[in-house]
């Protein structure tokens, strides 16, 4: 009989790539059908929560931060060990309940045209966020969003703190950075619009996002701060109590396979988690790959972050988003 797999994953270019290329490949291989349920990480997580006990989704794609929560809530099935063969260790999520699909970096995106006009140099450091010349030209996502969380953590680190001592980050935001911020924009789509309408010239953003925008012809560039960008892992997990558990496992394995990884890397600019993917120099130029970048990427320990995230969010909304 026809088996159907429900896949909850990002909309937009991710959806396009999957629907047009990856899913047909997998369907042909397995004879099963895939229904794509688009949604950003938080939406998908909310759906898992709402449908507890009667899950519709079989496989989900969620950013590493929220995925840690999903695992904590017990929405994920353990990923077959075989899937991890040939993957970087960094692709493992806690308890092997999820696996990375691609690596993105959080860094600084900027409008090259405006920078040139104003005669500014490209940004180079997390500390640039505090530079008064960017007043009202800067957007940072709020910490409810992965990129925003990274910005706070990075700022804490620049000021002598870290995930276990976040206060210096808040202090810096309170004292200087928030002054510069025109809007704490959580939506990538809106962020892209803010760039396009000239509302902002600089933002804390993902490497993949900037590539997508630049691909449209927009004069934008991505800067890895010299202190290091922050690693963001796009992850996937098979959902518990699926009516097609084998297919779900198979699909998770499929998206981490070299052929899928190559396509993902070249189209979505997520750096591969599979060691055997080979990329040309041009192909890898937009990705957070290569020794100078990858080695420099800062890892976030979500075990610590998630335990204090409630507090952080509270402080953030009360102290920063004023």
């Amino acid at each position, binding site marked *: 009989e026809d088996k159907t797999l429900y896949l909850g994953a990002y*909309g*937009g270019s*991710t959806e396009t790539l999957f629907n047009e290329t990856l899913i047909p490949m997998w369907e042909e291989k397995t004879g099963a059908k895939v229904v*794509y349920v*688009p949604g950003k990480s938080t939406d998908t997580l909310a759906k898992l929560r709402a*449908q507890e006990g009667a899950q519709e989704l079989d496989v989900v794609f969620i950013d590493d931060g929220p995925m840690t929560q999903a695992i904590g809530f017990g929405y994920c099935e353990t990923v077959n060990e075989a899937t991890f063969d040939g993957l970087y260790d960094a692709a493992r999520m806690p308890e092997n309940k999820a696996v990375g699909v691609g690596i993105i970096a959080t860094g600084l995106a900027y409008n090259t045209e405006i920078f040139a006009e104003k005669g500014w140099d490209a940004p180079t450091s997390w500390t640039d966020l505090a530079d008064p010349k960017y007043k009202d030209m800067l957007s940072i996502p709020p910490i409810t969003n992965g990129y925003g969380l990274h910005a706070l953590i990075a700022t804490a680190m620049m000021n002598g703190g870290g995930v276990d001592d976040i206060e210096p980050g808040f202090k810096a935001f309170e004292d200087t950075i928030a002054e510069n911020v025109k809007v704490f924009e959580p939506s990538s*789509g809106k962020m*892209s619009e803010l760039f*396009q309408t000239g509302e902002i010239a600089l933002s804390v953003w993902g490497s993949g996002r900037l590539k997508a925008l630049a691909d449209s012809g927009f004069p934008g560039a991505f800067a890895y701060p010299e202190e290091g960008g922050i690693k963001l892992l796009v992850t996937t997990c098979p959902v518990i109590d699926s009516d097609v558990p084998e297919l779900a496992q198979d699909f998770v394995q499929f998206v981490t396979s070299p052929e899928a990884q190559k396509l993902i890397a070249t189209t979505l600019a997520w750096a591969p988690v599979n060691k055997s993917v080979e990329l040309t120099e041009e192909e890898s130029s937009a990705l957070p790959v290569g020794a100078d970048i990858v080695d420099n990427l800062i890892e976030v320990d979500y075990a610590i972050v998630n335990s204090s995230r409630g507090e952080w969010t509270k402080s953030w909304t009360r102290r920063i988003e004023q």
Partner: protein
Amino acid sequence: MRTLGPIALIFHAIFVAFIMAPLLMVIAVSFTDKGYLSLPTDGLSLRWFKAILDNPDFIEAFGMSVWLALFSATVAVIISVPAALALARHKFPGRELISAFLLSPLMIPHLVLGVAFLQFYSRIGLGGSFYGLAAAHIILVTPYALRLALASATGMSTDAEHAAMTLGASKFTVFRRITVPLILPGIAGGWILSFITSFDELTMSVFVASPSTQTLPVKMYNHITQTIDPLIASVSTVLIVLTFLLMLILDRFYGLDKIFIGKG
């Protein structure tokens, strides 16, 4: 004495300009030749209209939205009009309660409704189905249909209805042949607001819609969660133009005026 003075006309012009301003901006952007949002300052292009054809899901989602909005608005009107008559013409115990209950969907953030519907509907097996989504939309738009029918029915003279009754018309016939035509402006207004609200609803539908029932706003939203491009503008432009054309044709053949104005 039913003519308008210059001040009224100037006011009207400013009002219309205010209403049109952002729409015109969006329409302008849809003709950009760039890959990103910009006003077409140096070149017009239809590339973003061609792009619609490359994205058939937009057309499919459009169809879904139209169908869903038609269905929801119609059902909402059907359940609202009798209720509006009851609320307009009778004082009865529980009147305020019923009225507040039927209006409550207006007063809860759609997101909260969306999540609650998703929870409940997936539990009772309506999850992901068209009828689940439609039920949610009907609930969401009923307040509009109700309030507008109420505005029309309130204070309406019952003379004509009485006359019809004495001529032998049953309650239902009176309702259908006399009451409805007399409060038609309210019913039509309510239907239109319901249709449009359903057509445009996003925040709740994000949760309740499933891939097989993806509406246009949900489709657009998913399209722009990561990046925004002029495709959104061109889709909207087509939508605006289509709607106006449709309405003009309807006007030509049926006279919207009659519907909006009612009697006569």
